[in-house]
């Protein structure tokens, strides 16, 4: 990609890396929380539901600040992590955490809808055939909710690529470390003569978003046919 300058290319690569890890690491807890919200009755269910959706409603700057308070070098979780050499503040890993937190509600909503669409009768049938519940989940529920997981993951990835407010508040805007694509666009727009670079990154953003959407459509259609039993 010779038409991208080294600084621009760096921002794109960083964003892809941040979004990839943010999506991958939020999948297991996201699926678990979505399943719990869809199928189980437990005390504190509304609280959990509210907590999951909070980043969707709060101003991103507030979420970023709360992350800084919690995971910053002096924060209750940040201090022990820092001691183990796993500090998140002002590192790209922190950017991935911020992106994951912001994308989490989108993932959970999508997966939860697909869990609710699975007939619990199928899970019962699997149990009567001798399957313990973990096996039922792995062989019946999981394959059937795959389209929802996929849609949620792509939505989360796109959200993570574009996360700005929480990221810049939590991990700042350090070139090569936390200057993700949106931060870079913002920075280029602040300096004279940066419009051309900003515009190139905008083009990259649009291409990545379109590609993600197209990919999800193709995969979802293929899986939907499988799940419908055709």
């Amino acid at each position, binding site marked *: 990609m010779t038409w991208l300058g080294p600084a621009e290319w760096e921002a794109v690569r960083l964003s892809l890396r941040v979004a990839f890890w943010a999506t991958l690491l939020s999948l297991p807890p996201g699926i678990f929380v979505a399943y719990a919200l869809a199928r189980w009755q437990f005390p504190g269910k509304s609280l959990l539901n509210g907590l999951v959706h909070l980043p969707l409603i709060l101003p991103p700057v507030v979420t970023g600040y709360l992350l800084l308070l919690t995971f910053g070098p002096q924060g209750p979780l940040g201090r022990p992590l820092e001691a183990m050499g796993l500090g998140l503040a002002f590192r790209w890993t922190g950017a991935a955490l911020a992106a994951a937190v912001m994308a989490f509600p989108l993932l959970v909503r999508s997966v939860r809808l697909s869990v609710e669409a699975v007939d619990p009768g199928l899970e019962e049938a699997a149990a009567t*055939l*001798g399957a313990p519940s973990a096996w039922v989940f792995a062989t019946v529920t999981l394959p*059937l909710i795959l389209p929802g997981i996929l849609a949620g993951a792509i939505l989360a990835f796109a959200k993570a690529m574009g996360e700005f407010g929480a990221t810049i508040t939590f991990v700042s805007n350090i070139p090569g470390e936390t200057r993700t694509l949106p931060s870079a666009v913002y920075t280029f727009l602040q300096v004279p003569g940066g419009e051309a670079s900003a515009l190139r990154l905008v083009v990259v953003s649009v291409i990545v978003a379109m590609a993600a959407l197209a990919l999800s459509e193709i995969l979802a259609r293929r899986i939907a046919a499988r799940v419908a*039993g055709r």
Partner: protein
Amino acid sequence: MTLEVRLRHGWPGFDLDVAFRAPAGVTVLYGRSGSGKSTVVDAVAGLLRPQSGRIVLGDRVLLDTDRGVAMPPHRRRLGYVFQDGRLFPHLTVRQNLMYGRRLAPAARRRTDPERVIAMLGLGPLLSRRPGTLSGGEKQRVAIGRALLAEPEMLLADEPLASLDAPRKAEILPYIERLRDAGGVPILYVTHSVAEVARLATWVVALEAGHTTREGPAQEVLGDPMVTPAGVRAAGAVIEATVMRHHDDGLTELDAGGTPLFLPRVGIAAGGRLRVRIAAQDVILSRGAPEGLSALNVLPGRVAALRQGEGPGAMVVLDTPAGRLLARVTRRSAAALGLAEGTECHAVMKTVAIAPEDVGA
């Protein structure tokens, strides 16, 4: 292997309180929709936890609320054929069939998949997915899937209820074959008296959440006090041997020494079959009828007479062919002077006997 069930469960406005046993063969839980049949089967399978009860299969206690025992469904070793099939849509027919088998320990795998596939006629369907199967095909796969999980008992909750008559006729012989092969005992739920008559070796009648009667099929269906599906569905079952097939489309049976004519049946001469004779299709006559179009006339003696609330009366008749039920008006019963011990003749039109009432 006998299943013993005793359970109580209450909802607002409905109380279930049942106790019965299911010996080898096909035990039919027979009652109207809403009588609690499906709840009983779900409790046996472990999909529903009754407020109190005890369920024992052979020497295994599946549920004992007094002792806090409630075995989870996946350890009960029961095959469940649901009304709606519940095939896994993302798996092929073969993968569906093998789902439970793969989970059964090798030591318990006695059933040969190829035999089950052949018996249920599933060979051509193996690589298809459930979405492309007809209703009847789906239920056949569901039966095969349950059988191949190596269950110690098969549960079937109205497995034919969602099918039309031709599909029912397609599947019933498979279940009869299963029963006659003497394999796993079957607990079969239905509101269809025709299915009871064809399949049941043991009948448990369920009315409004209570078991009202249990016993061999002939005995329970021949009992005028037991009409869980309403008096219009009442009818006795008799057993007979096929004598010969006539050229004019009739099959002649030998029922306890008397000939009986049916529309042609697909069972070879010498074979045994069961015929359900609906109580409202039987006409009674004091003298031997003459000049009548009906081909079947059985001499008999009134064993009991039960006056109903309405205009009807149920007459229990002992004939050489077995016990028959006849539903006549109270006026006719009085005009004929029917009472216990009265000699009379039962007259049945051959064409009134529907094909779904005849089975092996």
